[in-house]
C-alpha cells in the first residue's frame, strides 16, 4: 500500500451512469490486476474504494459508476484536481493460473478490473461482458483492441446474446468450447450464478472478485469480512479476489 497525491488528467462520461477517470501519479505500489485504490474526497469521511482498470508508467485509470453522493461528486472533479489516494490495495488476480484457454466474465461496473487482467495474460482470453442494455456498454472495443475475443450479453437483448453472462457461457459450452480457468467480477447475484454454472456445473476453477462496504480498505477495521473454508477473510486485504475453492457457497 502507498499513500500519495494524484492529479486528475481525464474525467469523462462513458455511458449514462459510468465514468472514466485517469489519475497521474505514483504506480509502484500496484502489484497485480484486480487490486483497488481508495480515494479521499472533500466533504466525505470515508474513502471511495474503486478497482484499477488500467495502468501506465505514471497513471492509473479507473471506471466508476455513479451510485451515491461521493461518486456523483467525482464526476465534477476538474482536470488538474489533486486527490489523496491509497493505492495497491488488496489481493488481486493471480495470472499464473490462467492456463491456455482463459475465460473472463464481467458484469457492469465489475468489468474494469478485468481489462488490466486481460492485457496482462497470454494467450488472450475469451471475455464475456454483461450489461443491462446497449446504452450501458463500455470497454468492448478496448478488449477487442488488445486481441481478446469479446462476447456481449445484454439483459434486454438490445445487443449480443439476449440474457445474462451465464447464457452466453452456455452457448459457448454448447458449441463444444472448453476453458482452463476463469476470472470474474460483477454484482453478487451474477457471481453466484457464475459460481454455480462455471465452477460447480462445468467444473472450471476460477478467481472471483468481491465487493463490500469497507471502512478502511487495508485490513484494520474488520468491516468487510466474509466466512470462507479457510476462515474469516477480509474482502479488502485477503480479497477482493478469492478462489472458487475457498468459498462456502
Amino acid at each position, binding site marked *: *500500500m502507498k*499513500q500519495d497525491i494524484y492529479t486528475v488528467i481525464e474525467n469523462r462520461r462513458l455511458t449514462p451512469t459510468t465514468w472514466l477517470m485517469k489519475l497521474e501519479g505514483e504506480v509502484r505500489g500496484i502489484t497485480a490486476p484486480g487490486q483497488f485504490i481508495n480515494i*479521499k474526497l472533500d466533504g*466525505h*469521511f*470515508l*474513502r471511495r474504494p474503486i478497482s484499477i482498470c488500467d495502468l501506465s508508467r505514471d497513471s492509473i485509470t479507473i471506471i466508476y459508476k455513479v451510485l451515491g453522493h*461521493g461518486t456523483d461528486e467525482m464526476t465534477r472533479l476538474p482536470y488538474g484536481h489533486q486527490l489523496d489516494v*491509497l493505492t495497491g490495495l488488496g489481493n488481486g488476480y493471480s495470472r499464473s493460473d490462467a492456463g491456455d484457454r482463459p475465460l473472463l466474465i464481467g458484469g457492469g461496473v465489475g468489468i474494469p478490473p478485468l481489462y488490466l487482467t486481460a492485457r496482462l495474460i497470454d494467450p488472450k482470453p475469451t471475455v464475456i461482458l454483461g450489461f443491462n442494455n446497449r446504452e450501458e456498454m463500455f470497454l468492448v472495443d478496448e478488449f477487442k483492441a488488445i486481441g481478446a475475443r469479446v462476447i456481449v450479453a445484454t439483459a434486454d437483448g438490445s445487443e449480443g446474446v439476449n440474457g445474462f453472462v451465464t447464457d452466453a457461457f452456455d452457448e459457448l459450452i454448447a458449441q463444444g468450447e472448453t476453458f482452463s480457468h476463469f476470472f470474474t467480477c460483477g454484482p453478487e447475484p451474477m457471481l453466484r450464478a457464475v459460481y454455480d454454472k462455471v465452477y460447480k456445473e462445468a467444473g472450471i476453477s476460477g478467481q472471483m472478485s468481491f465487493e*463490500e*462496504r*469497507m*471502512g*478502511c480498505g*487495508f*485490513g*484494520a*477495521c*474488520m*468491516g*468487510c*469480512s*466474509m*466466512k470462507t473454508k479457510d476462515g*474469516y477473510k477480509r474482502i479488502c*486485504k485477503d480479497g477482493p479476489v478469492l478462489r472458487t475453492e475457498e468459498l462456502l457457497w
Partner: protein
Amino acid sequence: MVDTRVDLCGITLDNPVIPASGTFGYGYEFGVLYDINCLGTFSFKGTTLNPRFGNETPRIAECPSGMLNAVGLQNPGVDTVIREELPRLAGLFHKPVMANVSGFSPEEYAEVVKRFDRSPVSNMIGWYEINISCPNVHGGGMSFGTDPGSAAEVVRAVRWMTDKPIIIKLSPNVTDITEIAKACETEGADAVSLINTLMGMRIDLKTKRPVLANVTGGLSGPAVFPVALRMVYQTAKAVNIPVIGMGGVSSAEDVLEMMMAGAAAVEVGAANLVDPFICRDIVRDLPAAMEKYGISKLMK
C-alpha cells in the same frame, strides 16, 4: 523544548497518543507502514474468550463527519491472540501494549484477563482495557456498561485476576456517564476510557432498508468529538482516577483539547481508518502545537 510525556497508571508514555481498539488490529497492518514505536502505546482489537466472526455485512455506513460500524467484536479469540498475534507484534512494537478485552459475562472477562496474564506474552501487556460498552453485540458488551451495578460486577471479576492496571472503557449511551465511572472507581478500576461509539442508524432510501445488517451501529469520527469532550470533562471532575479521552480525535489540536478537558491520555479511533498515518502525524505535530499554545508539559 516541550515535554510530551504523560503518566498512565504508573507507566510513563512518550506521548499521550494511543490508537483505539478496533481501528488498529493487532498492530501489524500499521507496523508495516511506519515505525509504531513512535506511539504512546496502542489498544489492540477487542479480544473475547472464543473466536468470533461478528455481525453479518454490511457492517459499515458513512455519516456526515463520521461513520457507523457494527463489526460485532470479530476476533480470533484469546488463545490465538496469545499464540499468534502477540508474538508477531513483539517483532514490531517494543513498548507495553494495551490489551482490550470483551466478554458476555463477568466470568468471561475474568477468564480472558487471566489467560493473558498467565501467558508467555503477558510481559508485553501494560494495561487491560475492559470494554463494557460495545453497542453491536447482544447479551453482553454494552449491557454491562449502562448500569452502575453491572459495571461494578465486571470490575470486581477482573480486578483480582491481575496486578496490571485495569482501565474500564465506558459507553456514552447512558443518562449519566459519571455514575458508571464512579462505580468503576469504587470497585478498584485504575482508570476509565471514554467514549465508545454512540448508537445510531442509517436507512438506504433506494432499498428502504437499514444500511447495516445489524440495523444499528456505533457512530464515531469528528461528529462525536464535542460529545466526547463534554463527557471527558464531566467524568474527570467526578473521579480521582485517570480518564483516557477518545471520540473523534483527528489532530494534535484535538489531543490538546481533550487533555484540557481533563484527559490523562488520548485515544484515536476512526481517523486511523481514513488516514493510516494519522497517529504518526499527530505525534509529529504535537510538540509544535504545544509550543503554539504555550504548553510546556502534558504530565498532570
